[in-house]
């Protein structure tokens, strides 16, 4: 990963992922009903909606953790009814989680290194010796990881077990872990919850950088309207599992249904 330079921003391209008519329910609870939308290459796509609207569930459907009862997902031209989580990961989908899901017993560095697992393939026997190819591979990936660490400015906490980090830094490490997978599509579930303004600004900057300089497509769930409106290209709004609006931030902001269901007073 290069350090951010002044390269022009990668522009929005073709549809990368499309979700068609997806429905998901748990027993009696309908988490998602017949939602369709798409995400284009290179864009920042926000998903918003009141609590329990089905946003997180939607991300879970996209990367294969939940299997919808109905609907299709097309990712990079391939359509399927459901994915397996590791297929999604192999395909280039990475994510962060609403309730931080770091590997609590490991250091920040190891967490991010774990994100590189997919890209590592030296066989078991070299691993036993930790020598030759195994060591070379380790060092090579370590270099990439160190770049991410620099990028996210978390050098000092490299060796700290993540369980002890304050919430905001945990979120940052989690972003690092997702970035380490060098994904094409990055799903962020409330990356800025529990951060103060300064940290939100930093985080926004990271997201923009990732998007601009690496061309990573981003799906973003966030409750801070300021952030959503400033960062995203397009916004989907869910309510009670139904899509109630889809469009540019400005359109969405003025949509009466959205104001009623979600925003309350106009922002």
């Amino acid at each position, binding site marked *: 990963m290069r350090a951010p330079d002044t390269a022009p921003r990668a522009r929005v391209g073709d549809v990368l992922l499309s979700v068609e008519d997806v429905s998901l329910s748990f027993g009696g609870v309908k988490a998602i009903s017949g939602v369709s939308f798409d995400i284009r290459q290179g864009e920042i796509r926000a998903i918003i909606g009141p609590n329990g609207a089905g946003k997180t569930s939607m991300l879970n459907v996209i990367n*294969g*953790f939940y299997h919808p009862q109905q609907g299709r997902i097309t990712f990079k031209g391939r359509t399927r009814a459901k994915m397996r989580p590791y297929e999604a990961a192999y395909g280039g989908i990475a994510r962060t989680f609403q309730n931080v899901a770091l590997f609590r017993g490991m250091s920040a560095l190891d967490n991010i290194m774990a994100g590189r697992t997919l890209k590592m393939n*030296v066989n078991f026997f070299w691993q*036993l010796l930790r020598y030759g190819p195994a060591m070379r591979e380790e060092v090579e990936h370590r270099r990439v990881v*160190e770049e991410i660490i620099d990028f996210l400015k978390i050098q000092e906490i490299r060796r700290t077990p993540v369980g002890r980090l304050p919430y905001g830094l945990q979120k940052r490490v989690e972003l690092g872990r997702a970035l380490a997978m060098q994904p094409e599509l990055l799903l962020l579930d409330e990356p800025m919850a529990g951060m103060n303004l300064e940290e939100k600004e930093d985080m926004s900057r990271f997201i923009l950088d990732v998007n601009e300089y690496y061309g990573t497509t981003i799906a973003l769930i966030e409750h801070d309207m300021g952030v959503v409106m400033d960062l995203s290209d397009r916004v989907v709004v869910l309510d009670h599992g139904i899509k109630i609006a889809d469009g540019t931030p400005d359109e969405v902001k003025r949509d009466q249904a959205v104001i009623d269901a979600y925003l309350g007073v106009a922002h």
Partner: protein
Amino acid sequence: MFYREAGQFKTSYASDQAIFPILQDRIGIAVILVAAFSLPLYANDFILNAVMIPFLIFALASIGLNLLTGYTGQLSLGTGAFMGVGAYACYKLTSIWPDVNIIVWVICSGFFAAGVGAIFGLPSLRIKGFYLAIATLAAQFFLEWCFIRIAWLYNYNISGAIEVPQRTVLGVIVTGPRATSETRYIVVLAIVVAMTWIASNLMHGRIGRTWMAVRDMDIAAELMGIRLLPTKLMAFAVSSFYCGVAGALMVFLWYGGAEPAVFNINQSFTILFMIIIGGLGSLLGAYLGAALIYILPIVLRFVPEWLGIPIHAATVEHITFMIVGVLIVFFLIVEPAGLARLWSIGKQKLRVWPFPY
């Protein structure tokens, strides 16, 4: 003051990723190794036979279980049985091909244990936590039953037990009653050290990270492309490999023979307790735990004799039980994360010494 990394800068990632990045640690390890290998020069038979050899073997088994339970988070109560698989495999191998170097067979027996372990690891995909314990318990009791029932395993010996034949390596007797305790100790030590080193390699690399990832948050791991079943099965296999080798060592270089009861559930529990008290997910912890649970009672048993207090052997035993129980609780309260953690906090304190924090 004396324990600092200050001034020790790392100039390459490779050296930063070394297992003991701090010079003092490296010196410490070297000293311990030298001391360990030269122990036969000044220790008596009792220390070697009844203390050090068992301690090392338990440490190895604890490392094995720690790989599975401490690093991968899969609770296993089948350690005893997996050790048994190793022991019986080694026994069969060396009775079928007596001319092959026994150390080769000791290592090979690990593969049998690994295979059996992986089979009993299959349910781990669906079953978790204490529930998984049942799968391993089934392994424990079923295998124990096999050790009793399948006479082929113990070469149809009337006693139902296995007796270790005499084997030599490079002309030195290493197994059987005539092997000296020094030889056996050195062989065990070498194997245990080598396997600890390998375990440490594994844990510091990709495999260790995937295991810990599965332990800490299996869903997130899966969403990052770590496939759970192969990862868990590999952990079961590697762990059982270690236990199997430990079992073979136990019978061949310590007991000199064994009946199935040696591999019973208590053995499994003992080793589980070693890793918990030593520290889950720590290789050092495996050693510390083995020391606390195995060596401490031995030492306690000698205390009244040293002090010249005339009390009955049985009473000593009762009191030892009580003291060990109390100490376990005490250590847990002082540091639930295990002795290894206590050690690292100690180091942390040394680092900031003379300041309190």
